[in-house]
């Protein structure tokens, strides 16, 4: 810790908030960022209460922006959107085909609800699988280049 003191509440809060960043970025720079925050906090505390409030605002905005930028850089939001679109298109296509196939829907209300739950679960599984597949596919060239 800076100066060998226990970290302030602000520093602990900042460190906790860093967990909202992607893991790779946090592991790479999390310690340095916390250290920088502690130093900046120490300097601001010496300058007065107003400086601490300004620092909190500045660091909060910076961290929020960093979380958004770093998640966008991972490509996960875009991959999620593409996966969701593809999954819904796949399910819609399947539903169109299934409409022409004779599927017996149970007359019992409880069984009909169960069919609905199973279909929803199937859609969720398809979305998750598609997200994983797209994620692996998008990051494949970068991994090959690293080798």
């Amino acid at each position, binding site marked *: 810790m*800076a100066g060998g003191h226990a970290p302030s509440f602000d520093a602990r809060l900042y460190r906790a908030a860093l967990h909202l*960043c992607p893991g790779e*970025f946090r592991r*790479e*720079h999390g*310690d*340095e*960022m916390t*250290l*920088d*925050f502690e*130093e*900046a906090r120490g300097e601001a505390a010496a300058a007065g209460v107003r400086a601490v409030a300004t620092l909190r605002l*500045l*660091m909060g*905005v*910076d*961290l929020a*922006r*960093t*979380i958004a*930028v*770093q998640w966008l850089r991972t490509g996960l939001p875009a991959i999620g959107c593409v996966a969701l679109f593809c999954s819904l298109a796949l399910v819609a296509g399947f539903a169109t085909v299934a409409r022409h196939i004779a599927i017996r829907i149970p007359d019992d209300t409880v069984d009909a609800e169960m069919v609905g739950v199973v279909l929803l679960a199937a859609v969720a599984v398809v979305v998750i699988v598609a997200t994983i597949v797209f994620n692996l596919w998008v990051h494949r060239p970068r991994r090959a280049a690293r080798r």
Partner: protein
Amino acid sequence: MTPAVVHVLLALAGGERHGYAILKDVQLHGGSRLRFGPGTIYGTLQRLMEAGWVEEVASPDADVDQRRRYYRMTRDGREALETEVERLAALIDVARAHRIRPRASRG
């Protein structure tokens, strides 16, 4: 090049520095309109390292906190910065030709 990239490279033009020293340098030269925090600085450093414009070097001082990491501008980084400075200088020439001056110099 974004303002953050230009300022980080300019901070490293003076030699190897750790993240907080870069942050202080950017605050000093960027003025009150450019308020970067550690997230912006390290995000920029990460992108610059991926581009090969900045590299991490061993700490020059053994007494420094081990969590501090030092960064240095590479030759490619310097060339990119020089190109950007040339572009900005040309831009300023065009602005002067149109009699556009900084607000501070107007009095």
